[in-house]
């Protein structure tokens, strides 16, 4: 990149400046050149607020052409003589004011790009908590966080990535609350990011998280400012990227995936109750199909005789072994689940009726799959929808299929083997240096207490 300096000493220089810009950016219809007397204002019409330009820049300039003391009213300005910086500024929505005779260009921040208003969270909803979610605009997001955590300890470190998209990323933490090693570690990782095109925070997440190939998420993604504030106050760090409403939180343990933000907005008994139900159902989301297949094919002594004969009666009609039935129903359920996410909102009602009732009912009546299998898969499906953290659901779903295969081949022993390997794997996984199964694996009783029962808040 050529570090060009801008010279504006006379009219010819101004012309040259204009030509340079047109050559660099192309003669685009939204690249506006506005002359006011001996001054030139350059901006991109979609990104800069034209009314503000009129009010804050053009009016003062044109009013004071005669007097010679030229000024503009824009509160946030930068001065530069660097060509690249000027081009970047124009592309970011600033207006470049080149005044003939001055040796520096004024970059006035009048950016007002189109953006959405603050809306409800899409993925992480809560009943009793705030209903705000992040936007795509970095400054607005930071403002939202600042508004909640009005702390003087709030710190930010800035990175810019990519020569094409020029995405800004910031590392947020509370000074002296977040461990220094954590901040240093994440900073080091962000320093080593060399991606050219950052289209979302996930690019950065994949690059800086531990074990990017792991199925289990090692970084938390959230769209809620209260979650981020809560995390920051607890000593975690956040990475926020421009143009993405998803903020990354480090470190992330396995148990964070099963906490919802609702836990702190409910009383301790309700929150604890929900935690236990969630834990039980998540376990069944992982194990229920495998247990059913294992028990009915390998260990049918475990069932009470009446239940067993009921199941046997339902299974008489179906030609497939239990494992195959399970795999068929699991794939159908996953297909329905993904389809409902992707389809246009209007069709959701109709298709879910088709999916759930018709397919489920018809399959049973055709005698392809037995009724107990449908029950098992439905409960499993609902249980897997209970997982609050979206990325963990994928790990659980993949593991479930693998455990299903192990159960179909080796019964309880297969499930035990699968769980054992998973356990070993999870214990060795780390997230930003913290072991994944803290506080269970390195046993920290204080945090574990809070995990089992959400402790009542201290009263002074």
């Amino acid at each position: 990149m050529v570090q060009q300096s801008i010279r504006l000493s006379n009219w010819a220089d101004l012309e040259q400046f204009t030509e340079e810009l047109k050559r660099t950016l192309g003669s685009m219809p939204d690249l506006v050149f506005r002359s006011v007397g001996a001054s030139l204002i350059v901006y991109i019409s979609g990104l800069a607020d034209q009314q503000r330009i009129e009010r804050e820049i053009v009016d003062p300039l044109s009013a004071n052409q005669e007097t010679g003391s030229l000024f503009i009213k824009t509160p946030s300005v930068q001065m530069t003589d660097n060509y690249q910086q000027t081009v970047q500024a124009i592309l970011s929505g600033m207006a470049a004011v080149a005044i003939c005779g001055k040796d520096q260009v004024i970059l006035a921040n009048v950016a007002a790009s189109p953006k959405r208003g603050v809306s409800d969270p899409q993925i992480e909803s809560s009943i009793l908590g705030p209903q705000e979610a992040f936007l795509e605009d970095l400054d607005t997001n930071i403002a939202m966080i600042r508004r909640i955590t009005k702390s003087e300890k709030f710190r930010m470190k800035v990175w810019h990535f990519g020569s094409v998209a020029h995405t800004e990323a910031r590392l947020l933490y509370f000074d002296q609350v977040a461990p220094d090693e954590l901040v240093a570690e994440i900073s080091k990782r962000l320093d080593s990011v060399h991606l050219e095109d950052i289209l979302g925070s996930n690019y950065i997440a994949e690059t800086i998280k531990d074990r990017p190939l792991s199925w289990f998420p090692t970084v938390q993604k959230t769209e809620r400012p209260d979650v981020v504030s809560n995390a920051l106050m607890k000593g975690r760090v956040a990475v926020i990227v421009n143009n993405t409403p998803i903020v990354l939180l480090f470190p992330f343990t396995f148990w964070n995936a099963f906490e919802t933000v609702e836990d702190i907005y409910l009383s301790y008994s309700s929150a604890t109750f929900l935690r236990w139900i969630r834990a039980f159902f998540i376990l069944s989301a992982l194990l229920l199909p495998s247990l059913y297949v294992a028990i009915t094919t390998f260990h049918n002594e475990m069932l009470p005789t009446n239940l067993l004969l009921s199941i046997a009666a339902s299974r008489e009609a179906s030609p497939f072994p239990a494992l195959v039935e399970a795999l068929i129903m699991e794939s159908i359920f996953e297909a329905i689940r993904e389809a409902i996410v992707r389809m246009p909102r209007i069709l959701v009602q109709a298709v879910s009726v088709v999916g759930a009732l018709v397919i489920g009912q018809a399959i049973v009546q055709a005698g392809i799959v037995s009724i107990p299998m449908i029950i098992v898969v439905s409960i499993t499906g609902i249980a897997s929808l209970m997982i609050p953290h979206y990325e963990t659901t994928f790990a659980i779903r993949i593991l479930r299929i693998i455990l299903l295969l192990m159960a179909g081949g080796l019964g309880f022993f297969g499930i035990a083997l699968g769980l054992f390997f998973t356990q070993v794997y999870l214990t060795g996984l780390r997230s930003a240096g913290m072991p994944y199964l803290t506080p269970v694996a390195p046993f920290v009783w204080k945090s574990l207490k809070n995990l089992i029962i959400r402790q009542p808040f201290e009263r002074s």
Partner: protein
Amino acid sequence: MKRKISLLVPVLLLTVWICTGCWDRKEIVDVAFVMITTLDEGQTPGFYRVHAHIAEPKRIGGPGQSSSGQKQKEPVTDLVTEARNVDEARSNMEQMLSRDIVSSHRRVFLIGEALARRGIKDLLDHISRSPMNRISTLLVVAENTKAEKLIDQQVPLENFGVELFRELSFRKTHLPTSLKDYFIASTTPGQQPITASFATTKENEIVLSGIAIFRDNRLVGFVKGKEAVVLTGILGGKTGGSITIHISQVKGDLSIRLDRLKVQRKVAISNGEPKFTFQVKAFGRILDNRTNLDLSNPEIIRKLNKAFADEMEGTFQSLFHRLQKDFRTDSYGLGAMIYKKYPGYWKRIEKDWPEMYPDQTLKWQVSAKITGVGSIGAPLFIPENEVKK
């Protein structure tokens, strides 16, 4: 190196799964569940006649399909074979079925009286040895009939006949005589096993008729009626029997429902002879008053307690008379009492115990308590002046 290990793990798992997996896999639809097995003497001498009831899931029809109002036949198939021993019988049956026999859900083993009198020693090992069998299977005896006749009957209220045997043993006596109990009793020195016994009434209904007494793995007789109730009670089981008592100079009698027997038993050796003392406290409720006594009067209750205790003592005496003199079998476990308290002494008399046992005298100290008389004192239909207070 790490990459090699991380590739090795899934490959090993896959190998384990493909080469060795599935050997135990039995689909439910390829399996036949035996519900109950009955054993009788065979037509050929020296042979057993074995029946097995195999459950038919198709006829159960699965959940949600109720019967059409009429009493349906039990959804089982009856297989019968004659063989020299139980394992041969099993093998014969395997060759009659399209599915593999699974006996892990068989919960009752029914033995006919004739066979039981001959001796059941040869039947017992098979049941406990095969890992598929449960040691909690109930062992019951069919009294006065061949076992196969007993299971032919239609059973009220339950889907399967085997439920009747099980529920009767569990709910009514709380002394389910499973194989485990049988084995414990037969290996405890100084005790002989017992089982429940079932019979058919004249109207062809199955009834829990009493307790079968075994000695040396041979059936020697049955204890029935009140004595069976009392034996169950002192062995720690549930009683529900009806005891009839009456007081002298009062017309009519009362029925007491026996709730519980609290037994404290003591054994002492004096002059080289064992002395047994039983302190029994009987609890019961009066639920049928056929006299005109006013039961809310504590004096009357006191008299009734005494009559109750006397009646109980009489029953105990007659029970042990039967056990000692008629059957000469130590079913309660008097020998076991000696063994547990005086092992040295027991070692000396062990061989002679079967002869000593019938001559033992037991001291009974029976007290009784009537814990309730229902909701009313005197019968409601008797006019006030005739009630005996």
